[in-house]
């Protein structure tokens, strides 16, 4: 099978979505002529025209708000926010509007829309280009939140998001855009929204990550096996809302221990929700408290110090050790 990077997989998914359904359109800043600042939309405007791949004015609220109207009136917009840190500009249109149109109208109007946004640390960006803001949207009923950690899921989740009847935030870990290649089927396939994946099977402790922390968790699992012979299970949450509680509980019932790893700040983070669900669903199986390895409770730091701030392999390995020897 041919191998693609994540950014190629994202681009291929959008190309196939545009081909398969004339209601699909892509809009955002620099997505047309420039092909996106990360090349996610490379070549799409040349192929599908400037009415389907649209360079918009520089206005995040307008991009999302207009996409809502487009979706309500029969289109299937894929809106791009250039960096997730800029999405605050569009928070009202997402949380106050897109998330509530179906609810407010008792199902009369719906917003089948995808909002793509790159995010994540470790790539030496200016301020507000690296923040992980998934918790804001997990706390917003009416939107779904997905996050791929590899090229195969990147394509399958995006195709599922385009076909989904509700607004989906599709968050792209920019550190993984070109980090590695993997097998990606050429056909249309969908990774179901709402299903976590087991990346590594194991018996002693469950590591739970999403997006950029999945490769970190996998490396930590290898290190813990090499050093102490621990058998770690690694779960890639893939969809953060609605969350696959059953997969978390099933794994922890087997291992009795859990370590959650995310780049977002700790307090009020999705890790807290994961820990709560494990406590509710698998309390009697737990041999140790659920550990969290996360960003610290500060604004995302400047590039010169971000490596120390990010939850790296060493911190995860330490947490695994603490949890297993509790």
């Amino acid at each position, binding site marked *: 099978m041919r191998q693609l990077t994540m950014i190629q997989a994202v681009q291929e998914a959008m190309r196939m979505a545009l081909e398969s359904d004339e209601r699909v359109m892509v809009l955002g800043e620099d997505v047309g002529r420039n092909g996106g600042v990360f090349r996610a939309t490379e070549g799409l405007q040349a192929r599908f025209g400037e009415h389907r791949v649209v360079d918009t004015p520089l*206005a995040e609220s307008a991009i999302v708000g*207009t996409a809502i109207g487009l979706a309500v009136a029969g289109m299937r917009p894929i809106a791009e926010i250039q960096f997730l840190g800029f999405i605050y500009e569009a928070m009202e249109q997402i949380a106050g509007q897109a998330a509530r149109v179906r609810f407010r109208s008792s199902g009369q109007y719906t917003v089948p829309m995808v909002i793509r946004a790159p995010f994540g640390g470790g790539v030496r960006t200016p301020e507000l280009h690296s923040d992980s803001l998934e918790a804001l949207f997990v706390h917003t009923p009416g939107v779904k939140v997905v996050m791929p950690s590899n090229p195969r899921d990147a394509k399958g989740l995006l195709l599922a998001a385009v076909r989904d009847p509700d607004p989906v935030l599709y968050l792209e870990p920019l550190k993984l855009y070109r980090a590695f290649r993997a097998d990606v089927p050429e056909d249309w396939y969908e990774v179901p929204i709402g299903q976590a994946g087991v990346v590594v099977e194991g018996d002693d402790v469950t590591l739970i990550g999403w997006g950029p922390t999945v490769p970190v968790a996998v490396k930590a699992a290898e290190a813990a096996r090499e050093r102490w012979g621990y058998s770690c299970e690694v779960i890639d949450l893939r969809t953060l809302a609605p969350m696959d509680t059953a997969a978390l509980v099933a794994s922890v019932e087997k291992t009795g221990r859990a370590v959650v790893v995310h780049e977002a700040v700790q307090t009020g983070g999705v890790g807290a929700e994961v820990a709560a669900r494990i406590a509710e669903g698998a309390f009697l199986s737990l041999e140790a408290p659920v550990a969290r390895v996360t960003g610290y409770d500060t604004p995302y730091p400047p590039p010169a110090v971000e490596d120390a701030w990010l939850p790296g392999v060493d911190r995860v390995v330490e947490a695994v050790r603490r949890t297993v020897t509790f």
Partner: protein
Amino acid sequence: MEIYAPGGPKPEYRVLNEDGSVVGRVPDLPEDRFIDMYRAMVLARTFDERALNLQRQGRIGTYAPFSGQEAAQIGSFAALEKDDWVFPSYREWAGLIYHGFPMDRALLYSMGHPAGAQAPPDLRVFPVQIVIASQLLHAVGAGWACQLRGERSVAAAFFGDGATSEGDFHEALNMASVFRVPVIFFCQNNGWAISVPVSHQMRSATVAQKAVAYGIDGVRVDGNDVLAVFEVMHRAVEQARSGGGPMLIEAVTYRLGPHTTADDPTRYRDEAEWKQWREQRDPIHRYRKFLEKRGLWDEEKESALREESRRSVDDAVLRAESHPKADPSAVFDHVYGSIPPDLARQKNDLMGRTIQGKGAGA
């Protein structure tokens, strides 16, 4: 160096003056259309006054009255067709009822019933918007979709003077201009955003002139002159329909009542100003005088219409109050297209509690 200096206010476009005399071009409409608009204005005023009373009696919740703005709303909606998209704010019931939104549903909205946000299926009316100016962008998107899909429909956004300070107002005008979207931005400048007068909302002399900065057309119209409003809106709709792009309309009017039933305008508003609008610039009085001068209306018709309007509103109140109660468990059914497992568990939890007779809040 050329400095773009702010201009003074352009005169408001008018067809009728305050005593109903013709001072402009009367739109070329069949007689029954003239009368329909008047009937709608009287019905709307009857509805509004009744809704205020219902709120005082505790039979409906918070309500935002529109009295004084009937001409702006009915004149503008009269230029729209059923398959045009409408994105209203919360103070648009006069226009919405004229457009075909049932009065009992309008009351249900203020009773906090979800059915009050649902338009009949033959209309493209969005639920009323609470957040100021958010709906302008939705209108841009819907109008754009019509353009892309080759439909002849246009979109219209309704909002007040306060909305023109919001970022979404500016983003919407810019976006619509860049893509030449068939959308009409209809601003009812009623002088007050709760307690803040329009003179504190902006330094511009008019709302209409803001259009110029975005490269679109702007018009300022006497919002208490239903014929002038119709004429201006009609032209804007025709322009949008024929690919000529968006227009910003400023209808200058006045909110005779409070912002909502929860506030007291005597705390911030000068009584003399209110009195002047109430006694000398009432839009219904003005239009009635016009119809009388044309021989289309008289006292007998007026009393029959008042009686008929009262009865229609009575019927609507009866229908709203006998509408089936909202089912608390239904809140779970319209969060997503299909209910996720954890939400289904929460729904079962609530349903179990309601069945046990503890009530939804127990």
